[in-house]
């Protein structure tokens, strides 16, 4: 640790030469980070949205489902990865499973909130014109709950991007690998800060993509305030 003490002059917080010299590694880690995030949120959505539909139909299920998800969400990420890794092995799998578990609660909660908030009059009207249960779901309830579901997906994505970095403790942290490597490599500040900034930027970009997708999917809401 004594050798780590360096002056600001030889250890700048940020350097463009670091970015240009290591562009390929940065890109590789960012891609790894993005793919893991997308995969985790996609899996969580595929599980949570149908569960949310089920919970909004079978009312007594809503409490236990949301409660269980909330308990899992309370477990600190480092602890969850530390529990999963020794059992599943070091690497990508325990990180992916952990991320899916965290994203589940956010998406599930927003799906249930969104479906509960659908105007009963709209559902009644749809039934009145002869729509069956599936048609009511596909044409009225889901489209009306969509803004809330998209909001859940956005929140889940942004938090997942930040959480991936903790995966470094079990050997798969995307940009977190660079942060930790920089830390161990004589406190290489430029490497840590660049990875941190890249992480924030990735969260912003993915959030923007989901926002745009949500906007494109709900054309009837345009013109109203977001």
């Amino acid at each position, binding site marked *: 640790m004594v050798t780590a*003490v360096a002056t600001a002059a030889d*250890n700048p917080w940020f350097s463009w030469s670091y970015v240009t010299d290591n562009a390929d590694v940065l890109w590789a880690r960012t891609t790894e980070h993005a793919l893991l995030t997308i995969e985790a949120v996609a899996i969580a959505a595929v599980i949570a949205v149908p569960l949310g539909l089920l919970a909004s139909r079978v009312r007594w299920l809503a409490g236990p489902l949301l409660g269980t998800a909330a*308990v899992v969400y*309370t*477990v*600190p*990420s*480092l*602890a*969850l*990865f*530390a*529990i999963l*890794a*020794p*059992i*599943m*092995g*070091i*690497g*990508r*799998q325990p990180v992916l499973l952990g991320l899916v578990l965290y994203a589940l609660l956010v998406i599930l909660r927003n799906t249930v909130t969104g479906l509960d908030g659908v105007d009963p009059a709209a559902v009644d009207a749809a039934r009145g014109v002869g729509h069956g249960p599936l048609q009511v779901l596909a044409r009225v309830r889901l489209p009306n709950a969509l803004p809330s579901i998209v909001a859940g997906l956005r*929140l889940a994505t*942004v*938090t997942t*991007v*930040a959480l991936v*970095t*903790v995966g*470094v*403790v*079990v050997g798969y942290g995307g*940009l*977190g690998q660079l*942060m*930790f490597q*920089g*830390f161990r490599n004589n*406190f290489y*500040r430029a490497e*840590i*800060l660049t*990875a*941190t900034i890249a*992480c*924030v930027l990735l*969260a*912003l970009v993915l*959030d923007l993509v989901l926002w745009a997708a949500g906007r494109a999917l709900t054309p009837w809401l345009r013109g109203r305030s977001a």
Partner: protein
Amino acid sequence: MTTTASSSPGVVEQAVTYLNDPLSWTGPGGILELGREHLLLTASAVLIATVVALPVGAWLGHGRRGGGVTVWLTNASRAVPTLGIILLLATAGLFGDGATVVAAAVFALPVLLVNTYEGVRGADPSARDAAIGLGMPGRQVLTRVELPLATALVAAGLRTAVVQVSATVPLAALAGGGGLGQIIALGMGTQRYGQVLAGGVLVAALALVLDGVFAVVQRLVTPAPLRAAARR
């Protein structure tokens, strides 16, 4: 699952053995000492965050200004990787318990700020009007009407902050900080995965217990008519 460690059948056993060994609990660097340290760090960070966030949130909510900024701050703080900030603080020479408390407090601040702000701003306007009609000065309107009405949300924010800080503290162990995270960091470094598992269980248990304790606190301090508002 392709990466399953060859030692996986024995890992759970090792964890149980570690947790059953009295030497793991007592003595210097034992679970009890690290747990006490963990709680102390958590309490300090939450205290600092509360001392800053409560007055600022109450003032902003009372004046109904800065709402956009508080919400933006909360959302932006979610995107910032805590680990990166902790490591950056360490490279700036901020090591150990002090830096851990600062980093954890910074990340607990937004949730307390936004809940206090929303609670005060969302106080029933007719109650506020009545207080003003009675001739209460602005300060009294805040302390005697708006803040009591905001208790439910402030308590909910405090609970979230406590759980969040108790989850941030172990991350600092990766940069040499104290607390129960040390068990995980040390186990990883020495490839004793049973100890890693045990550390994970301990950190998780502490977070769940704190969440439970503060759920009770939240219920006790929230006046009965306001309880429905706290469920968010």
